[in-house]
């Protein structure tokens, strides 16, 4: 009999709510004995997230974000800046106790295991995906997924993105990649480094098809059954509290 984990499936919320939900699930897991949880989600409006240690002003073109209605948020996880395009990506998160027998204590090994779940999903779609340490997944040498993990509240919280579609020009508009004007040459160079499910497969893969592949990938990789569920009332309350912190200028501009 496989262990059952909770699946919170494709909730669409703004950046502050999404990061508040991830942290609320992490906080409640050990304290309240809630289930291990996998979430799949999308960000609306689209948003830029920076890693815990990044300088916001170094990474993000705040004026471009304002102009385009793109939210800006700081994560509690390290790693790099990400453009979460509502039209182009699925984000996942995983929460389990840090002493769960399924999750390696060693951080790099746990990246490999959890990224392995995404790789299962991508391979089932027909992509030749590989884990690229420390925290990336590539196909044909191009990055298709970035991942970040924290350990606090007695849990592992890992979240990451899977690119369904990628508009490199949009990414360059909101992230500060260079002081120089965005050139076609830069766009082509970036297209050599980054790719997406649709580009690799040369067809219109729907969010629903990608979502189903990822769910099966997690079930296979962790030998679990995922059962659709919702946040508890406790988690919803916590999320609202955390969301206020994520929205605060003090947090966003912290570094």
């Amino acid at each position, binding site marked *: 009999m496989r262990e059952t984990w909770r699946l919170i499936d494709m909730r669409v919320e703004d950046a502050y709510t999404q990061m508040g939900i991830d942290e609320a699930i992490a906080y409640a897991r050990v304290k309240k004995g809630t289930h291990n949880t996998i979430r799949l989600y999308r960000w609306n409006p689209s948003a830029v997230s920076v890693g815990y240690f990044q300088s916001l002003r170094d990474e993000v073109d705040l004026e471009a974000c304002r102009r385009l209605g793109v939210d800006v948020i700081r994560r509690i996880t390290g790693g790099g800046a990400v453009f979460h395009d509502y039209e182009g990506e699925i984000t996942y998160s995983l929460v389990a106790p840090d002493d769960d027998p399924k999750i390696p204590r060693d951080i790099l090994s746990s990246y490999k295991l959890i990224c392995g779940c995404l790789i299962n999903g991508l391979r089932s779609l027909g992509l030749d995906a590989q884990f690229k340490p420390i925290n990336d997944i590539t196909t044909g040498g191009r990055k298709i997924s970035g991942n970040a993990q*924290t*350990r606090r509240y007695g849990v592992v919280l890992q979240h990451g993105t899977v690119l369904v579609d990628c508009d490199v020009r949009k990414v360059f508009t909101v992230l500060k990649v260079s002081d120089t004007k965005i050139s076609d040459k830069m766009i082509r160079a970036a297209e050599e480094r980054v790719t997406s499910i649709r580009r690799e497969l040369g067809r219109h893969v729907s969010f629903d098809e990608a979502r189903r592949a990822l769910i099966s990938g997690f079930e296979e990789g962790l030998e679990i059954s995922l059962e659709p569920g919702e946040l508890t009332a406790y988690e919803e309350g916590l999320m609202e509290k955390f969301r206020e912190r994520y929205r605060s200028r003090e947090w966003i501009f912290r570094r």
Partner: protein
Amino acid sequence: MRAEFKVPGGKLLAAETEVEDGRLVRVKITGDFFMHPEEAIEGLENALTGIPANAIEDAVQGFFRDNPVDLLGASPGDFIRVLEMSLSSS
């Protein structure tokens, strides 16, 4: 003042420092590395603030010896390197 260093096979580190009368008066370390617990970065910056600018190596080594911190994508030596680079860039 400010220096950046891409760790080979690792992550990007940047350091901003200000020195007055031979001492570090401001230290900020940023980048896309991973440090667990994350709040240790503020601890490291605080540990470096006020020390003589020529004591960075000992202070960084001491911090990582005394605090249980996991680093991915950068080592204590990389932190020392980028901090010292930032001093010579001013």
